[in-house]
C-alpha cells in the first residue's frame, strides 16, 4: 500500500501554474480595479492554495473522510472570518469608526482621498 504516485510532469505543471499565477497577482495589483483589486488577489491566492492542497498535498487521492476533515477546517475558517467581519461591517460607518467606538484617526471612507490636511 504505497498510495497514489503522481507523475513528475503533473508536479511540474502545478509548479509552473503557481509561478504564472504569482506573476498574474503582481500584474493585477498594478491595474486599478477599484474595490475589486482585493477580490482578484484573494481569488488568485485561493486558487493557488487549492492547487497545492489538491495535488501537492494529495488530498485528491485521499479518502472521503480525509476530504471531509479538510473541508471542516475551511468551514470553521469561513465562520471565523465571516462572522467577525459581519459584526464589523454591519456597524454604522465602519471605515470611519475606530476601536472601541471612538472616532478613528482616519477620516471616513468618503473623504479618504481628499487633499492632505497638512503638507506631507
Amino acid at each position, binding site marked *: *500500500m*504505497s*498510495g497514489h*504516485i*503522481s507523475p*513528475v510532469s503533473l*508536479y*511540474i505543471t*502545478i*509548479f509552473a501554474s*503557481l*509561478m504564472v499565477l*504569482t506573476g498574474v*497577482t*503582481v500584474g493585477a*495589483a*498594478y491595474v486599478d480595479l477599484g474595490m475589486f*483589486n482585493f477580490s482578484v*488577489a*484573494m481569488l*488568485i*491566492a485561493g486558487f*493557488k*492554495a487549492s492547487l*497545492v*492542497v489538491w495535488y*501537492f*498535498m494529495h488530498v485528491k487521492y*485521499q*479518502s472521503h*473522510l*480525509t476530504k471531509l*476533515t479538510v473541508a*471542516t*477546517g*475551511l468551514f*470553521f*475558517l469561513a465562520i*471565523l*472570518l465571516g462572522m*467577525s*467581519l459581519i459584526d*464589523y*461591517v454591519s456597524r454604522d460607518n*465602519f*471605515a470611519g*469608526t*475606530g476601536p472601541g467606538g471612538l472616532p*478613528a*484617526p*482616519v*477620516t471616513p471612507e468618503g*473623504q*479618504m*482621498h481628499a*487633499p*492632505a*490636511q*497638512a503638507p*506631507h
Partner: protein
Amino acid sequence: MSKAVAHADHGHADAQHAHHPALQHHFDTMAQQKEAAVIGMWVFLLTEILFFGGLFVAYMIYRVWYFDAFAEASRSLDLFWGGLNTAVLIFSSLTMALAVRAAQTNKRKATVNWLILTMILGCVFLGVKVVEYADKFEHHHVPGPNYVWAEPGHEAAPGSEHANLSLTPAQLQNTTQIYFSLYFTMTGLHALHMIIGVGLMLVITWMAWKGKFDAEYYTPVEMSGLYWHFVDIVWIFLFPLLYLVERP
C-alpha cells in the same frame, strides 16, 4: 473486530501475514495506519489554519479601518524580495513533493537529495527575510518607541509621490505602526514555522539516509511534506495581503 484480534494474536507467527516492521500493533494494515496519520496531520493543520486565521481577521479589520495607511506602508516593502521569496517557497514545495514521490518509488538517495534541496530553499527564504527585516530596522519601521514613519521635514517618506492622502504625518505615524505590527507578527510567525519545518526535515533527511523508509512506509516524509506545503499556502496569502495592498 474478531478478525483484528486474531490478526494481532497470530500475525507474527503467520508467514502469510508477515508484518512490515513499521506497522504498529494497534493497526490492521499499513493503509489503515497511514490514513490515521494523514487525518491526524490534517486535524493538526486545521488548528494551524485557525491559529493564523485569527491574525487574518485582525488584519482585515485594521485594513478596512486604516486602508490608506496600510496602502502607504505596504508600498514601502520591496516587491522584489517579496516576489523572490514567493517563487523560492513555491519551488521548495515542488522539491518537497518530489521528495515524497522519491520515497514512494523507493529512491533513497533521491529522497535525501530533494529533502536537502528543500531545506536549502527554506534557508534562502529565511535569508531574504533577514535582509528585509534588517532594512526595516534601518528605516525605523519596527513598531515600538523608535518607530518613525517619516522624519519631519524629511521628504524621504516612502511612497510620498502618492501622498494626496487624507492622513496627516502624525496619523500616519500611528496607523502605519499598526500595519507593521501585523507585518512582523504574521511574517514572524510564518518564519518560525519555516524554522520548525527545516528542523523537522533535518530529522526526516537523517531517517531517509538511514534507510528507514520504503515504498510501503514513508509516512514521516509525507507528513512533513503536508506541513511544508501548509506553510507555503500561508505565504501564498501573506504575499498579496502584505506586499500588494495598493500598488501605484
